[in-house]
């Protein structure tokens, strides 16, 4: 992390993980994960299915406890003060399990017992805003309406941290939009949102910070803007198939060949990168542009992508590490 972000983290960390390890029998879910989420941001956690996102969230909400390492939310230890934590956070899982036989007002009334006053008013407002029918039992609601009820239950008590675990999977664009608006709204009033999602386009719109988990390890933790500025997509067209061209300087994440074009995803591309490609190199038409988040994600997480190893540059052959 650069200095600014480091300072911010030290100041008001809403969520903090230090060297957390977790394994389930033979599978390693999390390996040496350290993370600090500052307050007031929308923090996106990306990763493939099975990367460990849900495990991480379970550790934060107190479902599981880490094998080794320290996890804390809002300054409170996840192991010992999980009740306090649960009072202050809201959690929406994917496919939330609600009492099917209750109606939305009933479940809100039921939940209000566990939170301080004010829950019911806000919950009522949210239901009105989301346009959820009041008299229908939850088992008869559509998937989107259920998700909205779950969201309303989670933010009714104005939590300081809202954790969303793939909340919009399988929902229609209208509902997804409403979720995004809610997230954005929380951030606008200074609360923190931890979003674990596959919908990269959504993440690109709303996230401040992005972390990418791959096989239980954190590959990237950075503000989104920084990440997108740093990673570029370099395309080169070669004269003839099979001609060897040099690899651009900087940290090359992947290299893909299609016909007579080669494309690299490069981190920290120096400004004078074109100097490496004199006309004699056999490459015409060089261009560099910002990579989209999806391309970055795939570049980092795709195990089958080729990562060119340049023998004389030790820095490039080191395994990828988090930005720090």
């Amino acid at each position, binding site marked *: 992390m650069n200095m600014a972000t480091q300072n911010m983290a030290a100041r008001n960390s809403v969520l903090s993980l230090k060297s957390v390890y*977790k394994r389930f029998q033979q599978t390693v879910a999390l*390996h040496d994960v350290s993370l600090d989420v500052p307050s007031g941001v929308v923090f996106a956690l990306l990763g493939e299915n099975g990367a460990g996102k849900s495990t991480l969230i379970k550790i934060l909400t107190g479902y599981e406890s880490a*094998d080794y390492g320290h996890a804390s939310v809002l300054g409170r230890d996840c192991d010992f003060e999980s009740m306090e934590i649960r009072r202050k956070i809201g959690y929406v899982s994917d496919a939330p*399990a609600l009492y099917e036989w209750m109606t939305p007002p009933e479940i809100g009334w*039921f939940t209000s017992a566990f939170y301080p006053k004010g829950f019911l008013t806000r919950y009522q407002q949210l239901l009105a805003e989301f346009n959820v029918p009041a008299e229908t039992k939850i088992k008869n609601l559509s998937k989107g309406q259920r998700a909205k009820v779950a969201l309303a239950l989670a933010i009714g008590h104005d939590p300081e941290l809202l954790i969303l675990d793939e909340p919009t999977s399988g929902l229609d664009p209208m509902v997804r939009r409403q979720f995004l608006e809610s997230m954005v709204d929380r951030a606008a009033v200074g609360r923190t949102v931890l979003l674990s999602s596959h919908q990269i386009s959504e993440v690109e719109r709303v996230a401040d910070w992005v972390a990418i988990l791959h096989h239980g390890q954190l590959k990237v933790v950075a503000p989104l803007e920084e990440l997108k500025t740093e990673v570029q997509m370099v395309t080169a067209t070669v004269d003839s198939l099979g001609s060897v061209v040099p690899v651009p300087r900087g940290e090359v994440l992947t290299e893909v060949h299609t016909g007579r074009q080669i494309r690299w995803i490069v981190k920290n591309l120096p400004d004078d990168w074109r100097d490496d490609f004199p006309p004699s190199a056999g490459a015409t038409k060089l261009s560099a542009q910002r990579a989209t988040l999806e391309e970055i994600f795939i570049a980092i997480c795709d195990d089958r992508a080729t990562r060119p190893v340049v023998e004389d540059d030790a820095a490039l052959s080191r395994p990828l590490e988090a930005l720090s």
Partner: protein
Amino acid sequence: MNVALRHLLWKDTRMIASLATAILVGTLVFQLMIWFTIWANASPSNIYYTIALWILMPNLMALGVPPMLVGSEEESGTLGWLRSLPVPWPLVVVSKSLVGVIAVGVSWVFSSLLLWMTISVWESVLPLTVESMLQSDAIRGFAFFSLELLFTGFFLAYLCRSPLRGLIILVPTIVGLFYAMQWVEAWWDSHEDPHHLWSIGRVLITIAYTAFLILMPLLPARRRLARRRSRKSAGPPPGLAERDDQPYAPSAMLGEASRPAMWRAFLWQAWRQQSRPLIGLAIVAVLLMTAFWLRTFLFGLTRPWVSSDNMPLIVSVVLVLVCTWMGCLCFYPDSISRRHFFLADRGFPKRHVWWSRIVAPALAMVLVLLLVHYLGAGFRTRPWQTITRSCCLLGFACGLLSSMWMSRSTLAFFVAPLLTLAILFASMPFLDHYSGYLSYVALAAIPLVVASWRMTGDWLKDAYRWTTQLRVSGYILLAVLVVPTTFFVVRFGGMPRELPEWRAEMMAKPMPKAFAWTSQPQSVPTIAGYLKPWLATHPLPIEVDGNLVDSPLMLRTRTLESLNLHGSNNTDALLESIQSAQRMLEWSKAARLAVLDGAVRPTEVLLYADPDERAALNTLYNRVLNLHVDAETLAMVTPAIEDALDAMASEDLREESWRMALAMEWRLYQSRRGPPKMFAGTYVDGGNYFPRLERRRADRNVDYAVHSLLSHRVDDGPPSSADFYTFGVPVDIWGTGTDTYYGRYEDRIDFYVGLGPYYKALIEQTLQCRRASDR
């Protein structure tokens, strides 16, 4: 009260609502049926049903609350959602326990109210045994048992993830606990209580045990509700192993050659879903029946609750429950997460689906039936076996239908027993008078099975409309009606045919001269009256009180007793018993002669002379066979024995008198009007319904019995039991509920006409042998 607790209580109450309503409504309906039966039959033994209901329903509630409260939350995932809220987990447990206690309490109160109403109306006819059950001790015991059941259920529900597994483990646990409690109670009762310290200690221990029961579920609940703690490692675990992403390796299972046949595929899938709970239930049944089989060894014959009908009843109830749940297992695994849509969406044939679900549980049920047949055998248990088997079949069918019919799958496990009970209770008006009725309830299984077959289509598509519910109700009604219908059809359709020629023959048969007292049967002397003057000249060798002489029947009993005096080595005692035997043989002979004259009622020969003769011969035989008697004593008593044997009636006399007695009794029977009608001292027309048909049936049965007995030749030895018409039918003419196996041995008509001479020959033979060997 704490707001959180209040809301949790509301939520738990709402979850229980359907079960509680079903049970309370069921209680009321069953009670109404019982009242109707009592009113219709005016029979006090129906009060037992009320007691049974009073005990059963709250326990069914206690059985059902934990799976509904804990298991279904676990399955639907809402327990996980609750965990993400700031709800302190002990509060969740407290709320569920409280709701459970209240539900069971309400059920107890309601049932007790109904019981009190029943008792206060029919107080006068209350049987004695019922009174003992209504003592405060017993009531406390029952209530405590419900509590035990409830909290053990909670414990297991928290412990096992699936509610079904919890239920299956609960059954043997609670049976074990029940018997353990009995042992403890018995041990306690058997100890002296010098300083009354025991009673205080007992109270304390009861309180401690209750507290333990209530707090026990907290342990597994904590594991389920609170954070999962994993052991912290000391240091960071070693580095990541090289993750080798294997390329997809083709599995042998997916090769073309291994494509299964459709039946195999279905059966494999059904078996994999059903195997574990089914095996669990089967193990429970096996353990229970083994314990039953070994009960005399396990518990010792001195324990009162073993030798009484208590244990067979408990075992029956549990086995029927097990079979019911086996039936529920047929469609439960598919219903539980709507997996049947997998089958419906692909258009699998309904027939295959239905059969493949049924096969494994049906086989398990057959196993239970076999266990009952082989391990439950024994004297006094044959009717129990038949009844249990039928109820198990019925339970299975009810479970089958319920698991398909109920949309909330766990509820099916409690609706099925209720349905079984409902069908059994519908049979109640008939149970009192028709002893074989309960074995017919297995027939009710057939419409239920057909109903589930017809419903398969709707079930697969989950398309239950009101017409479906109507059809199912129709089938259930059919099931209820099929039993009495079949029973009565068989009963009246199986009447022997009329024998007009034989009847004419019998009516024309000449009767003894003195047989003119059909119009005034009261004036005929009984054997008592006949014996009295005879006894004046033939005094009995035993001591009798003065007034006993006037009561020959009592004399008879005393004489029978004296036959079995101990001290067989004592010559005097031996002589006394032999002489008593001689007296009995003499008066049998006298009675026979009297019958031939028409001077005595024919029943006396059939019911008294024959058995007495047999008893006397039996005694003589035993005395002679008894090897403890030394040769000297034997030599002394031999003359007495020979005298006794001489006193016995001759073969011809025996046969003739027996035939005449039968013919006379038959003739007398024709003039009796009834109801009820009696033949030779026993009621022959039973049953409360269709009196004219019953009478006709009784008449025909008597005709048939007498006809077959009379045409049977005495020389051929006693009729074999395989000879249905001579042996089976006569037993059947006793149409009442009196079970001949439990009737007093002496009161049965003796059909073993040839047995007397057989024994006589045996005795003479043995005497000769002994004389020969002693020389």
